[in-house]
């Protein structure tokens, strides 16, 4: 077997890019972008993750089977988070039927 040897300068380049993105995400946190702060922070984190996965974890050079397994993992993570949040965030959308208000039973403090 002849392994795919990645040049050292590629690894160092990825390392420098990851450091720059860390600085960027830290700096942006001190700028008021409103709700965009979260979006930008997550976008930078995803970019960093892709750099690590593709180069440090050698997925750029891996087989299609491995890639499908990884994608399936992230698909399930997306299902976990999206379905959970879609439940929590939409509970207030529908009015409570009369008689369902359980405020006198619940809320033990």
């Amino acid at each position, binding site marked *: *077997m*002849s*392994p795919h*040897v*990645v040049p*050292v300068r590629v*690894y*160092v380049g*990825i*390392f420098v890019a*990851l*450091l720059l993105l*860390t*600085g960027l*995400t*830290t700096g942006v*946190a*001190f*700028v*008021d972008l*409103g*709700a965009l*702060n*979260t979006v930008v*922070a*997550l976008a*930078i*984190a995803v970019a*960093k*993750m892709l750099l*690590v*996965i593709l*180069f*440090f*974890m*050698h997925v750029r050079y*891996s*087989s299609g*089977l*491995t890639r499908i*397994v*990884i994608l*399936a*993992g*992230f698909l*399930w*993570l997306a299902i*976990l*988070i999206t379905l*959970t*949040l879609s439940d*929590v*965030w939409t509970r207030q959308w529908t009015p409570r039927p009369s008689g369902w208000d359980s405020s006198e039973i619940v809320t033990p403090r």
Partner: protein
Amino acid sequence: MTELAAQGAQTAHPPGLRHHFDDMTQQFEAGNLGMWVFLVTEILFFGGLFAGYAIYRSLYFPGFEAGSRLLDVRFGAANTAVLIGSSLTMALAIRAAQTGNRKAQVTYLILTMMLGAAFLGIKFTFEWAHDFREHLVPGFGFAYDGPYASNVQLFFCFYFFMTGLHALHMIVGIGILTVLTVLAARGRFSPEYYTPLEVSGLYWHFVDIVWIFLFPLLYLIGGRYALGGGH
């Protein structure tokens, strides 16, 4: 059948090859795939915490914001850099195995362990010990005077569980690296066979990725600008 037997007799059997694999490439691929399947379970393991975090952050954002401001961004950012550095040395250790450089393998593995230990050192001594003295550890005399106190406490529950689970993975990783360093020093890895290094590297980089998300989600929650500093 005789043809196959003749072929087998002609080609030298690679020392690292297990008999149930056709060749070293297939063996490497199988090990790699198996590790990824494990990492997918890890993604979902941490994913449950991230989903819970997303729910409570969206419900109690002001409390999470106030809690995040109590963390020191400088330590979080420094630790991110330390972990990224350890990922670089891990990748270089595997490269050293691919090029058959035993001494470089050992050097880079020890560097990786030292950076991992530095991360845990910063985390435990500068951050957790400080949080404990400031009464920010839920269940251990948590006290917070400001508004949204119960939500700030919830934030710190997430903070300690997420960083704690991450730190546990780091400790396991350093244990694995210790074994690998001994094996590498004994010359167990070659360009033909370095699967233990490769899959352990996958684990180490995975733990790095978890931190890449924990850093902005815990330390950089919106509203940092209102303070103008990370105090």
